[in-house]
């Protein structure tokens, strides 16, 4: 039994080290004066951040990435919330097709999706435009948006809730606004955060569909990986810090939801 515990500790320790070293090294590299001849950096500086923030393309790329992620979240929300709600409440046979359509993107590698979209949309205003990129990102991210929303809809006994509310004299608008809305809000927020962080870090679709015309943060990062590692590390830190904050928020939301469910039982 004792061996068992020791082997578990070793496994967990190796896991933590393997997972943390690349992250910590990148954070440290971004504030190191020079770190390629010694085991510890030769000094610390914030110069690379200053240079990164002053770089003309950094602000543009950051803005583009934020815009792309926001638009994608909006498109997904507009398409999925009404459809998922209607499918779950009134059109059960549509629900199956929705489930299927939102699993499909998992089976399409992003390079394949980009290749397919570019071959079909060849007309100038749409071809290789940010509009096409938002569409591609929306398709790719649908599972992340749909699953949490579908889960929170499935967690509710919609028919009973509906009947009870109607008996109490509530109309459709009130049911939607005061009962369904607050109950699926967690799913909506969770899905939005997942989509936002996935698209904010999305490189493949952006580089293949719009290319240099619409530079995003990951594209700038890949460029600097070859040119200047110090700037690249600063960009990585900015991008990962945003992603990390988003996923910590998601974890907290999930915990809150578990608490709520426990109380319900």
């Amino acid at each position: 039994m004792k061996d068992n515990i020791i082997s578990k500790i070793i496994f967990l320790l190796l896991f933590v080290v393997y997972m943390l070293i690349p992250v910590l090294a990148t954070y440290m590299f971004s504030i190191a004066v020079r770190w390629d001849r010694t085991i510890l950096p030769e000094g610390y500086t914030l110069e690379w951040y200053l240079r990164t923030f002053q770089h003309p393309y950094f602000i543009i790329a950051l803005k583009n990435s934020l815009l792309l992620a926001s638009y994608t979240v909006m498109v997904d929300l507009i398409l999925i919330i009404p459809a998922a709600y209607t499918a779950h409440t009134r059109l059960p046979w549509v629900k199956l097709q929705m489930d299927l359509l939102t699993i499909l993107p998992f089976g399409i590698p992003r390079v394949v999706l980009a290749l397919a979209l570019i071959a079909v949309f060849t007309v100038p205003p749409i071809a290789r435009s940010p509009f096409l990129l938002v569409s591609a990102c929306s398709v790719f991210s649908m599972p992340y948006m749909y699953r949490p929303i579908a889960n929170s809809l499935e967690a509710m006994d919609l028919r009973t809730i509906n009947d009870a509310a109607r008996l109490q004299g509530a109309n459709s608008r009130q049911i939607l606004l005061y009962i369904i809305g607050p109950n699926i809000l967690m799913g909506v927020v969770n899905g939005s955060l997942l989509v936002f962080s996935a698209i904010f870090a999305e490189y493949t679709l952006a580089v293949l569909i719009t290319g240099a015309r619409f530079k995003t943060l990951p594209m700038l990062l890949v460029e600097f990986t070859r040119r200047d590692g110090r700037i690249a590390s600063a960009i990585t830190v900015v991008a990962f810090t945003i992603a990390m904050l988003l996923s910590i928020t998601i974890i907290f939301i999930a915990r809150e939801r578990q608490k709520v469910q426990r109380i319900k039982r």
Partner: protein
Amino acid sequence: MQRQSFRVMHPGIARAIDSIWVVPFFLFCIIFEIIPIIVLIKDSFIGPSGAFTLVNYAGLKRPVYMLSFWNSIRLSAITAFFGTLFGTFIGYSILKTKTKWLKELLTALANVTTNFAGAPLAFAFIIILGENGVVTLIFARILNLHLYPYFQIYSYAGLVVAYTYFQLPLMILLIIPSFAGLQKEWREAAINMGATTYIYWRYIGFPLLAPSLIAGFVLLFANAYGAYATAYTLVASNLMLVTTQIAFVVKGEVVHNPALAKAMAAVSLLIMGLCIAIYKIAINHAAGAEK
């Protein structure tokens, strides 16, 4: 009250009005997902003359393309295997951690690091395992273990290390619920009947867990197969993978025949479809699965 009388007016009309809410979603999926994929598959069967042909698929027999498929499949299989193996043990260790805060912290670590993928991940591995990387230096100076020139981060081995990094947390998050599905009472019952820990895992635990392991493996396989950013940042054109080859055609950097890229893409879709099918079947047999 008017609203309700309207709803009972005619089921056909009510249904038509309900459908309005799902139409945009389906229209969007058809335009940006279904049609492009169908056109892609159709194009892969069309030759330069515009007639139906299998010449594009025959073209895939050339060594360049065979090598790309072999590299992609081997890389995906190896890293999915590592991910499944280590992810399962680590997931189990996390689940059995008694200290609650430590358990939550470790799960959170797996959760947060799933975001560390693609280009940032590739860059981080260049920093630590490049020729002047800090881990390379520590190995050389302290352990007197010289990684270079035997190991290269810009190579196949480098890709294995980097891919395993993003496979591991995914597997951990997938497998923890499956372990939770193994009821404590089953183990107690087995032990009471005289089973040893080995017997329990060999005849009860593992067979119950097997569908989850298979599901996890194919999901990781598909995950690695479709990855592009990490591979491109690390090896660019040094190593041929299916995704990098297709991307070269899209970017117009290499003069490949676009129809060949479409045939490659179609074969990739077939492989992905197979993965999803196996995943679906396996997850239906998994212990403690929701569906």
